[in-house]
């Protein structure tokens, strides 16, 4: 399931409410941006796409189109009244209601294309191969972006992205086609210029499923976050980009529930510097996030709170490296 909301508090609420559903075998990916939501939906083809009702109508329509072509159940989060045409249901932006709805949600069979509609059949075939195509593109493009690739490798990478640029939109996957176009344009001329940040981010998104034929069905390591919805909403997309699950804990549950199974714990600290109360979680790295500074418990170093988003991926990679192999 994918949740898209520009409001970090709402995103955090959804991630928090998903705990029981996650234990039931569902995975939730959170993203605050329209574009990333569309790309993730088109390629991952989730069971459901949950769209913040706060998006403007145009944005809602774009996400709805992505859900329809991906065979995902389009769900509107928040607001009042009957959902707009195309959305299956509107779920209140309230933890207990959202949690109850998520617990009912199970990965279901995808609708089959109408018999005799060959266009729908080839589109479904293309959709089924999109994960493999994305992995192929991102592996070759990432190798080039890292530098040192020979001209043949650059040309091969560009050939893949160029083809996907030309075909994805026709098959109903325009956001993925745009990612391919960005990669294609960057590879043109052998990447003489450093790639734009938007391209790097696109690669990061695609790396979500790199190497995994069924990434939504695989098991990811988990990070426990104890903090407000805004912090959870801010950090969840960054954590997910490292192929790590987020579980949100109430204060009394911190460090408990799935003892020993968390890669790390992130705790929002009120007030100044100092370790929070930690119930028996000494074996696990603990990242403390204060109003102005953040630090890893037990470390003498701290960094500005504003740098948290940029630093978290490296911290996660370090923790993952020390906690055993990743699963995808």
């Amino acid at each position, binding site marked *: 399931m994918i949740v898209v909301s520009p409001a970090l508090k709402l995103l955090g609420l959804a991630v928090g409410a998903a705990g029981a559903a996650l234990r039931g075998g569902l995975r939730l990916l959170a993203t605050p941006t329209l574009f990333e939501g569309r790309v993730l939906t088109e390629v991952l083809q989730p069971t459901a796409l949950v769209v913040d009702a706060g998006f403007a109508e145009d944005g809602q329509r774009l996400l709805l189109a992505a859900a329809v072509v991906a065979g995902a159940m389009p769900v509107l989060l928040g607001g009042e009244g009957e959902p707009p045409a195309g959305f299956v249901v509107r779920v209140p932006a309230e933890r207990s209601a959202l949690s109850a709805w998520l617990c009912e949600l199970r990965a279901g069979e995808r609708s089959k294309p109408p018999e005799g509609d060959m266009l729908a059949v080839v589109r479904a075939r293309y959709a089924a191969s999109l994960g493999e195509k994305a992995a192929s593109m991102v592996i070759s493009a990432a190798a080039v972006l890292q530098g040192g690739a020979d001209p043949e490798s650059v040309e091969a990478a560009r050939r893949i992205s160029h*083809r996907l640029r030309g*075909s994805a939109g*026709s098959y109903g996957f325009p956001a993925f*086609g745009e990612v391919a176009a960005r990669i294609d344009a960057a590879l043109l001329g052998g990447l003489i210029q450093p790639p734009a940040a938007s391209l790097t981010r696109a690669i990061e998104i695609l790396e979500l499923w790199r190497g995994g034929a069924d990434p939504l069905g695989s098991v990811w390591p988990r990070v426990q976050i104890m903090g407000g919805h805004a912090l959870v909403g801010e950090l969840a997309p960054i954590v997910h980009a490292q192929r790590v699950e987020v579980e949100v804990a109430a204060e009394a549950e911190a460090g408990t529930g799935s003892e020993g199974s968390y890669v790390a714990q992130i705790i929002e600290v009120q007030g100044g510097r100092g370790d929070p109360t930690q119930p028996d979680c000494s074996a696990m790295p603990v990242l403390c996030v204060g109003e102005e500074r953040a630090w890893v418990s037990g470390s003498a170093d701290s960094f500005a709170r504003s740098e948290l988003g940029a630093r978290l991926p490296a911290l996660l990679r370090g923790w993952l490296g020390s906690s055993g192999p990743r699963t995808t």
Partner: protein
Amino acid sequence: MKVLLVDDDDDVRMLGQLSLRRRKWQVWAVADGREALEVALRELPDAILLDVQMPGWGGPETLAALREEPRTAAIPVVFLTAEAELEDVLRYRQLGARGVICKPFPPLELPDLLLQALVDE
């Protein structure tokens, strides 16, 4: 209407054929320029949809080869391309293309886009 579709991408050929055949048009689809020339000489299609970037003979090279053959020289060629900046379109027209259709194309509209390109001259 008889159309020859030339594109090295299987997915584009598949979608293009389906789209064009919905109009009951006769369609041949091939993956490279040399094969396109052979089919064009044999079948003499009414129009050729030709991808610009292909391994081996690209669109411009294939177009040049078609123009050198008296039997295929007058067959209208419309380029298919993912890069259609204004200067590209002008360059393709200077090479002798009747028109340019941008990829990705809306699949159900491909026949109309082709007809439009043929009329637009």
